[in-house]
């Protein structure tokens, strides 16, 4: 499953508007593939777990699985 494609134009407008960081179109184009790759990788597993994953403390999981 692929995440919806995020275009360089959308990246540029979002970063400029939301992050207030100057983000020329050529820089947005350069990282467009990387952003979509990360999105795909994260979405592939996250969607399956969305209703199951509890926002439980990671620290609690470390304690529960700890060396005796």
């Amino acid at each position, binding site marked *: 499953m692929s995440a919806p494609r995020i275009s360089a134009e959308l990246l540029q407008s979002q970063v400029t508007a939301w992050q207030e*960081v100057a983000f020329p179109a050529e820089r947005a184009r350069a990282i467009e593939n*990387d952003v979509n790759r990360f999105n795909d990788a994260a979405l592939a*597993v996250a969607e399956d777990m969305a209703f199951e*994953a509890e926002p439980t403390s990671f*620290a609690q*999981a*470390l*304690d529960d*699985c700890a060396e005796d």
Partner: protein
Amino acid sequence: MESILDGTLTEAADAIRRRNISALELVTGVLERIERLQPRLNCFIRVEAGAALAAARAADDAIARKDEVGPLHGVPLAHKDMFYRAGKPATCGAEIRRDHVAETDSTALRRLDKAGAIYVGGLNMSEFASNPTGHNDHFGHARNPWNPDHITGGSSSGSGAATAARLAFGALGSDTGGSVRLPATMCGVTGLKPTYGRVSRFGAMPLSWSMDHVGPLARTAEDCALMMSIIAGEDPLDPTASRRPVPDYRAALKTGMAGVRIGVPTSWFGDGVVPEVAAATDTALGILKYLGAEVVDVDLPDMAICTAVGNVLTRVEAATIHRRWLKSRPQDYGPIIRYRLEIGLTMPGTRYVEALNMRGPTLREFAATVFSKVDLLYTPTMPIRVPTLAETEPTPQNLAYIANALTRCTRPINYLGLPAISAPCGFDAGGLPIGFQLVGKPFGEARLLAAVHAYQQATDWHRYKPAMV
């Protein structure tokens, strides 16, 4: 004198305590070596010779008065230049922080000071601890003491190089995707990334709050155990620091390998391992088996998930930390870190929350799958030979390839928050070190240190030193 300089942190501390050598002699010897080798290695950003000599004289005075002294009394250490000391510079390897003077004291540094360690200087590092090769365009690249044409690994580049070149008996590093373990393996020293929360990060430069770990690099597991016994433990200044009691790591070194179950992964960690690395790590595994370990194959959950989702956390958190400077001083970043940070500005908030929410369940699945069968997981620290600086000069085009090749075995462990140690186990045909990695259960540092200590009692790879030393 030479033999003490070339020996271990534990041996140096014992020698001072027994008055076999003075702190002043030891610090003077280290400073002379730094003066000789720094032009070739560039592993220091700043040497604090005057302060170190003054501290050494004070340490000797304390011994003469028969004061009670700490376990690191008079031993020279140096640390990645991102651990803050109030009133002192901490460049973080970055142009943006070149003139920064810290306002707080790092908890880890403060604990080492209290134990009597002498601070020799700030060590080179990747800009803002952000790349695994150790390249640094602002302060120059640190060089590998085994061959200066090769990378040290990063981001704790100076920590690996200085420890290997006997310019410090140990060093603090930080590890967000392999930044303690990679320079440890590439420079032929021992490096421990503790469990998330085992060592306070207060006063250490943040790269990614969820993925950052502070840990020691030293010449042996015994030295790492000594440093861990000082720096580990709860800290009211760091709410993520665990309140679990700290075991006696040095006492635990004696537990050995008998009955320890070691798992060899059937997937992910063996992919792309070059023959020389496979041969050296297979031989080391055979020695651990000879020492009493039970070695079995173990199936893993999909480690690609941990890498991909962990990268979302790192990118977004780093971009959040740097957003102000990305806005006001973009020209002062090196092109590679700027590229990596900008990716984080573009990630949807939902991806970030998913990555956080999945972390606990993913760890529980990993523990149920792996640690129900074995005590430790065994992998190479890095699947390839130590590359040259020229081969790994990063560009936006090759960055992902280089990062994936170097960090394949280390990065997923950070998302899981598990402790992992890297130890030297041989050399490639070019004379560059090879290392193995052991991964333990949460808060299982004592077992990791004991395993590597047993290995280092039976082998002498950790005793080799670079020819230039």
